């Protein structure tokens, strides 16, 4: 494999990892606060459609982004209502949200655009376009480092840089601020927060809202940056891979980056090479596709280091007995 092929694969790793990373961080906020979220998929899908639709109508990718975030947050609000206010089953709520998004996006897309449940192709400013980092062209002649800078680091859309910047920001927010301390505490032991005089409900809604924003950005990236418009079920299980990455990352932001890059790489390899021939032994592409899920099961089974979720995860907080 030459350098160019390698760079191409890594470049597509970055592109494919971006939505995973954003969704994974969304899940991280929510689950760190004790709210299971298997509705990441649905929120991304909803955002992908509304961002693409609004971007097409207004011609502005940024307005699309806002619409995507708003639609994702509506689903977050439903999830919060069900799992925080009405103390319902968080898993069932997540499942419902996934189907709601899968259905609504196509119904509305068909009604608005009549193209079989997709949006028209986005062009120009309706899409997030690649940004060339300073001097990318000039430096591309330098051996090794030049191409890396030009091909790998430069030339992504602004959302990619936002996603990668979200990692240190999340780390900082969780581990260096009052809000983060309380957020982590409420997912571990809500009673400790309650007896310290801080609202459990408020913190949990805040976490669910942040998850909505991040899923919104992830969806907008899919619909207006990675691809030029929305197609039916375009998230294609990314929400669940993000969930897998979250477990893989043991609910930590930097690990989340590594996990999503790994899963992005697996996807990139599967896209680029199809079947991998290892001198007579062929790894089928389907195995590469399934690898993130297999890895997650192995992690969950506790064979490779135990993944301990936040202790209060999934449990509605009930104070009075």
């Amino acid at each position, binding site marked *: 494999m030459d350098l160019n092929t390698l760079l191409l694969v890594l470049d597509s790793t970055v592109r494919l990892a971006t939505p995973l990373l954003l969704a994974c961080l969304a899940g991280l906020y929510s689950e760190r606060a004790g709210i299971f979220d*298997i509705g990441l998929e649905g929120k991304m899908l909803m955002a992908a459609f509304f961002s693409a639709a609004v971007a097409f109508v207004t011609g502005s990718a940024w307005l699309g982004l806002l619409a995507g975030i708003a639609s994702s947050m509506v689903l977050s609000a*439903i999830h919060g*209502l*069900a*799992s925080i206010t*009405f*103390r*319902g*089953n*968080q*898993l*069932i*709520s997540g*499942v*419902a*949200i*996934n*189907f*709601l998004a*899968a*259905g*609504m*996006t*196509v*119904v*509305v897309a*068909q*009604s608005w655009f*009549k193209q079989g*449940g997709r949006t028209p192709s986005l062009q120009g400013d309706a899409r997030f376009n690649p940004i060339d980092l300073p001097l990318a062209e000039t430096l591309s002649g330098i051996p090794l480092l030049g191409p890396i800078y030009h091909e790998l680091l430069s030339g992504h859309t602004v959302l990619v840089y936002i996603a990668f910047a979200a990692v240190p920001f999340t780390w900082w927010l969780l581990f260096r601020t009052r809000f983060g301390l309380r957020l982590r505490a409420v997912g571990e032991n809500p009673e400790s927060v309650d007896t310290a005089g801080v609202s459990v409900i408020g913190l949990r809604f805040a976490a669910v809202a942040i998850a909505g924003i991040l899923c919104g950005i992830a969806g907008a990236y899919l619909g207006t940056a990675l691809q030029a418009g929305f197609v*039916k079920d375009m998230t294609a*299980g990314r929400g*669940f891979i993000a*969930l*897998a990455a979250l*477990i893989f990352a043991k609910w930590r932001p930097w690990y989340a980056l590594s996990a999503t890059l790994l899963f992005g790489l697996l996807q990139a390899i599967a896209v680029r090479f199809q079947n991998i021939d290892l001198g007579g032994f062929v790894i*089928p592409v*389907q*195995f590469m*596709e*399934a690898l993130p*899920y*297999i890895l*997650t*099961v192995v992690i*969950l*089974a*506790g064979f490779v280091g135990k993944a301990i979720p936040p202790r209060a995860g999934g449990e509605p907080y009930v104070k009075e007995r």
Partner: protein
Amino acid sequence: MEKMPRWADAVLVPLFSLVLAAILSAVVILAIGESPVKAFKLMVDGALMRSAGWGYTLYYATNFMFTGLAVAVAFHARMFNIGGEGQAMLGGLGVALVCLYIPWPHWTLALIGATVGGALFGAAWALIPAYLQAKRGSHIVITTIMFNYIAFSVLNYLLVNVLIAKGSMDPATPKFPEPTHLPTFQDMFSTETTTLFKSAPANVSFFLAILACIFVWLLIWRTRLGFEIRSFGHSETAANYAGISGVKITIIAMLISGALAGLMAVNTTQGEAERLVLNSTEGAGFIGIAVALMGRNHPVGVFIAALLFGFLYQGGAELAFWTSIPRELIVVIQALVILFTGALDNMVRMPLERLFLALHKKEPN
């Protein structure tokens, strides 16, 4: 004391949820510029007014009965099996292998063989998540979701590389041999003068689904195993007191659940397609969640809810054919039913409970 009678909780809560889902769906239909009344009429016409429509409705209902029962049995042991989709896919593989590689003399024997094959493969696919839950505490919801995706990859690999028909580009097995073909409702109920259920996919496995409903009913409410499953599902501490092994119940309940999901393939793979195709499940594994929630995990409820969703599916297809409303509207309804019966059930229940409390107070004690 109970705040409201049992029958009200079992009947009114799902009914009320359905009404809420229907109202919201009507709003969606209005919002996209169609008439809800007209849409409903179209659905009824297409799904219920002709025998061919019924043939489709009952075909879909058959799938949903199997997957709904699968989710329900797991729910009785307080487990949320989202893996019905993957278990049904593997069930399809079992059915296909049985139909392709065993020379059956007659469809009745092939049906028995396929039933065993589908159930075994479905159960096997549920075994690993069940074992990991019981022994290592790995959350069954996450593992079954992962196993859905793994199932798709396994099937994709086998269909593309191993089982594919010679000279075909389509990832599917060859057509099953003639003796394995199941009689359709058209074969069974048409007379010489009238053709009923014309070219509809409903077939004899509908009756297998009814048998499965009866089986689950007997299992859950009439056997020691069912007693233990329900006990464990209601209270783990009490089950421990009674000497009921949580590990055993977790694994057995999931095996039964997986087997039921796998049985769906008899209907789709042997009964309808007569070969194994990649997307034979078409999300029926997930609709089982809505069916089980709405049917309150009772076989009678599951039967009714499956018929309802069968109607919605067939009606939805008609809608998509005659109007600009796409089939996915049904997915929206499905989502709303899951939301109201499974996650926002407290919201639905509260006003009903208040109503009953008010009625109760009026009566002199």
